[in-house]
């Protein structure tokens, strides 16, 4: 339902308008990638892509397709800007976390273009809030050059099984080691903490394992725990996750997320391997 305070004249100057009946469909996904303060927005005809990066080693992306929005108007091929993600999330949840069924915050997000702030119109129960968030020049997201042809190993798991493991990970371990092998242990997460090692093994015939594709060689790579631990948020929202490594040892985690209305969005994480390890 379009916000009645919006006049037609104003609408003409915006180069991007995205409206949602339920702002949580955006805020939940953005929380899943909220590693850092700043997020790069890149809107195209297909939808919205939001990117957050950490120390040039980790990149998290959220994809919200145009179809998710009740209204999605874009007047240029690509619209890009950078905003403070923490501030954006605070605004999206400005009415508090209402859990009363049927009551949700409606959102209309508008952008005039380069140099203009991002304008949010939020409405709940007849109360309207207008937020204008300063935008910055968008940085170019790192291209991890992760393409399917280089993928050596891939598994798709139901998230439920990984959620327990990730929530229990030994945080005294500096690294999380991921092993994928055509033979036992098939798919293994390992930590090396102060008290000892822990291994979580997922056999290829487990009913949690939807796809197991491993080349003839086993691969074992280590990733900094501090980089990967935040991905637990995305994992918590998702129902399925795909884990892929490529020949360089780069890791791609892709999460299939269903929002409140049952629509599908994707979140993905790319991570560089911890430098000490040789990729086998």
């Amino acid at each position, binding site marked *: 339902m379009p916000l009645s305070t919006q006049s037609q004249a104003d609408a003409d100057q915006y180069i991007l308008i995205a409206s949602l009946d339920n702002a949580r469909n955006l805020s939940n996904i953005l929380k899943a990638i909220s590693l850092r303060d700043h997020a790069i927005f890149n809107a195209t005809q297909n939808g919205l892509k939001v990117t957050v990066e950490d120390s040039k080693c980790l990149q998290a992306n959220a994809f919200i397709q145009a179809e998710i929005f009740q209204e999605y108007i874009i007047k240029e091929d690509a619209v890009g800007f950078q905003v403070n993600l923490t501030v954006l999330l605070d605004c999206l949840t400005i009415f508090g976390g209402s859990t009363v069924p049927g009551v949700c915050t409606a959102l209309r997000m508008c952008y005039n273009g380069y140099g203009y702030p991002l304008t949010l119109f939020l409405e709940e129960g007849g109360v309207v809030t207008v937020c204008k968030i300063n935008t910055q020049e968008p940085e170019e997201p790192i291209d991890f050059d992760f393409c399917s042809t280089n993928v050596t190993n891939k598994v798709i798991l139901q998230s439920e*099984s990984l959620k*327990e*493991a990730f929530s*229990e990970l030994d945080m005294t371990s500096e690294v999380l080691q991921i092993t994928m092998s055509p033979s036992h*242990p098939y798919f293994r997460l390992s930590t090396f903490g*102060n*008290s*000892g*090692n*822990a*291994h*979580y*093994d*997922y*056999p290829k*015939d*487990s*009913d*949690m394992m939807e796809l197991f594709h491993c080349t003839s060689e086993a691969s074992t790579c280590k990733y900094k725990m501090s980089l990967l631990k935040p991905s637990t948020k995305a994992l918590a929202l998702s129902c399925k996750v795909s884990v892929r490594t490529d020949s360089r040892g780069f890791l791609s985690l892709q999460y299939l997320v269903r929002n409140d209305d049952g629509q599908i969005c994707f979140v993905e994480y790319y991570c560089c391997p911890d430098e000490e390890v040789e990729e086998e």
Partner: protein
Amino acid sequence: MALKVGYNFTLFYLNKYFLTLVFVANKHLCLVFGKAVHALSRIGDEIWLDPLEKGLAVRTVNSSQSAYACFCFTPLFFQQYIPDPDIRKDCEAVKCKLNMKCVLPLFRCASWRERSVDKCEISINIPNSRVIFQFHCRHGITKTYNLGYQECEALQAVFPAHLCPNVLMAQSKLLGDIVVHFPVSQEEVTLSISSFKVTLKTFCEEENNCIKGMNTELMLHPDEFDYFQVGEDSAVTFCLKELRGLLSFAESYGLPVSSQFGVAGQPISFTVKDMTLEAHVVLSTLTDPNHESPSQPAPGDDCPVNILKTSTAEVSTCEGPMETEVCIADGEQVASSQGSDVFNPTPHMRKMIQLQTPGEMLPRLRLAPESALTTPVTPATFKVRSLLFGAVYTNGMDSKTVDLPSLACASDTEED
């Protein structure tokens, strides 16, 4: 004898040089074990695993050595028994000490474990000094935790329960209902017994302090107890906090709790038993200030935990970083593990909790159903730790040898 719990104990011998003990437990025992670990974590920061011939003993002691707890899991049957006596001796020589902080998280979410865990294997890998907990979960998922352990002497408390004049046994529900009235922060309580009543009340150090805060007093008629024996009227004061773990364990399984104690100053023991396990908590009690001196130990007897043994003293200490830092000077008021500043762990207690070298002739824990921790009485191994006579060190310990003497166990203890 019907199997109450279907689980197997397997002592598994791989080869002479790489010895791994394996205890396999099904879902139920895994839960029970987890609850036992929780109960132990309320007392101490370290957990001792002691694979005995007749089962796995899991023990802890608090930093001031005023509380000791032991859960002994007995096997209902062996699937495999180590035939070679040499290897068996090596097995029994393994004593592992683990940090409680490492073990407790493995058993944290009881409800999750109940749903997801099918089987738990506990192995001890001696060459690598690792205890391995492996959980076989739903969907074929396996979780393996390799925890490094410290080789140490055994922790064992010798508590001749049969010498206690006072014995009480009650359903855990009754005890739970009683202790719920005491605030969780309440540390010390006084248990008084006479022929016609049992009283449990808040302990006040001085009469004046009783005015401040809330004081609780409960009186029970002997009929409330399943078993009531009063040999000597007494009032013993102990730390309630350290008992709560055992009580909630007992309540989870609806098991009765029995208690053996004497007069003030003598340790009080609480026992929970069933066919598959035996759990004890032994707590020191405050000495009666009017009858102080005879029980004071010799001045040279400081720091029983850290200091190592002289030929007469009982052994204590474990080398290594996991050594407890508490140094208890006798006569001094020391902090109990919870920071209370009035509790003085009595010398009796310290003598009772001894860390023994493997080379000694250990009195084996006999798991006879009727008695609590009693030592097997054999001429060669009998060590007098009589509480009635206060501190007694056996002089037989002067010729202590560290290597495994041939005169150990085999001939002297009552092996089957």
